[in-house]
């Protein structure tokens, strides 16, 4: 290894966790494949996860049949898939999904832009910070879900109200994270810019913004999850369309199968949106791992 000449080093020990299930060279092959080696490889893990999924579905189906569960308690996996297909074909699930997705995305974008704008203002101006931050924090202390009915009273039921609710949910994480991020600028970097006689705008562009980006994107990742929750809660309270409304409708008809179908769609939607923001975060903030923490 220490010779440094790649042409000469041909012996490399076989290591699990490489991601490769093929040996490169085998100096002294281990006599037995330990079960733990399976977990070490990527394909091994994927296989394990897939097997567990299969096992889970089988257990689910068996439980429903063996315990003779009423469909409104726990529907069988096959029934849920049927319900999903039916719902798409007949009940306009696609339209509901589209409505909810629209509410989430528009609300998220609006709330985030507002959060960035106000966050930047607060971070850059001590006056604004002193004036506004106490109100922001006080307002933040009231759980946003509690405020949702008030929003419905003020703005009625309908797409726009839910967008507003979603925006409200997205706003705070972004705001707080922008402020934290903007404040986290390295003092030495600022001095350095000063020594290069950089203008305020140049300092802002080259030092402050990149410093704030990791925090901002962590906030965006939290915000998208909250935007999804917000849209659902908003639809629960006051809407006549959308996945949340569809769930309540199924609830009133004790149609648990349809509810499960809606859960699947909702889960997929949420996962897709989170993944999208995650990808964006990784591309923009390529120099750092973003850690938003686990928020449900």
């Amino acid at each position, binding site marked *: 290894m220490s010779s440094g000449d790649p042409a000469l080093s041909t012996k490399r020990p076989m290591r699990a966790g490489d991601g490769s299930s093929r040996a490169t060279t085998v100096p002294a092959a281990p006599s037995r494949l330990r079960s733990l080696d399976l977990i070490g490889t990527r394909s091994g893990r994927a296989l394990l*996860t897939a097997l567990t999924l299969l096992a889970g579905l089988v257990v689910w189906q068996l439980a429903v049949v063996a315990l003779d569960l009423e469909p409104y308690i726990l529907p069988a996996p096959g029934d849920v898939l049927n319900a999903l297909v039916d719902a798409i074909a007949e009940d306009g699930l696609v339209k509901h999904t589209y409505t909810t997705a629209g509410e989430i995305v528009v609300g998220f974008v609006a709330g985030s832009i507002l959060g960035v704008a106000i966050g930047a203002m607060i971070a850059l101006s001590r006056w604004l910070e002193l004036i506004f931050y106490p109100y922001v924090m006080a307002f933040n202390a009231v759980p946003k879900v509690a405020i949702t009915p008030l929003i419905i009273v003020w703005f009625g039921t309908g797409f726009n109200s839910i967008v507003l609710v979603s925006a409200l949910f997205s706003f705070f994480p972004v705001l707080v994270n922008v402020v934290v991020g903007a404040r986290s600028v390295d003092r030495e970097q600022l001095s350095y810019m000063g020594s290069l006689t950089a203008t305020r705008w140049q300092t802002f562009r080259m030092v402050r913004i990149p410093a704030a980006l990791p925090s901002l994107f962590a906030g965006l990742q939290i915000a998208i999850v909250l935007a999804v929750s917000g849209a659902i809660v908003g639809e629960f309270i006051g809407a006549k369309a959308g996945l949340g409304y569809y769930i309540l409708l199924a609830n009133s008809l004790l149609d648990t199968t349809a509810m499960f179908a809606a859960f699947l769609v909702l889960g997929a939607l949420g996962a897709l949106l989170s993944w999208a923001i995650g990808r964006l975060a990784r591309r923009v903030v390529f120099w750092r791992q973003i850690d938003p923490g686990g928020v449900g």
Partner: protein
Amino acid sequence: MLGALALVAGVVLWKLAVVALAIEPYILPPPETVISRLVDGIGSGSIVTHTYVTGAEIVVGFVAGSLLGIGLGIVIALNRWIEFTVYPYIVAFNSIPTVAITPLIVIWFGTSFQSIVIITALLSFFPLLVNVIVGLHSADGEQVSFMRSLTATKWQTFRIVRIPSALPSVFAGLEMAVILSIVGAIVGEFIGSQEGLGYYIILSQTLLDTAGMFVSFIILALIGALLSVIVKQIGRKTVFWQEIEHRGYA
């Protein structure tokens, strides 16, 4: 000091806005209506009952969910097989917003205290689970090797190295879980309950009693602030060696 000043200024502005813009009381009630509604509610005892019910749901759900999350987190963190089989599905289930599952919980368990506690516990469970796993995995490799060089047993290593490394993460999870517990209790009450502050908000909504809603907001904010402060203080005492960052959103 600044907070108190901002509060007074805020109330004054509020009153001025209501009077100057002649705002209807059902859109924005003046401060004194809210105060009088609060006093009436306390006097008649109804607000007290609602607050007590919601508070109990929050605390019981939070404790139950956190304990479950911590327990399962320890099991998953220490056992790679379970981590690769069970954990991906827990993460997948978490893609479905727990609030969306609320109506199902109500179908299964009825409109009762238990249902709300279950929802609240479900919401608290996940942050704790994730943070316990992250925290236990974050143990310093060198420290673990050192323990091995002292021929420490697995349990000793766990107790002396892994648990302390995990504590900051666990308390960060607890702070998140407290906030989520409040959210869970309220949404649960929206869907299926006949008492509690969430129920009171919906009731006020149907009566267009915006002042009542504001009363609930204030009480909920106080509950949230109180619980957050308690968890943070316990965290600071327990994890006395660390600066805890402030991150707040609900």
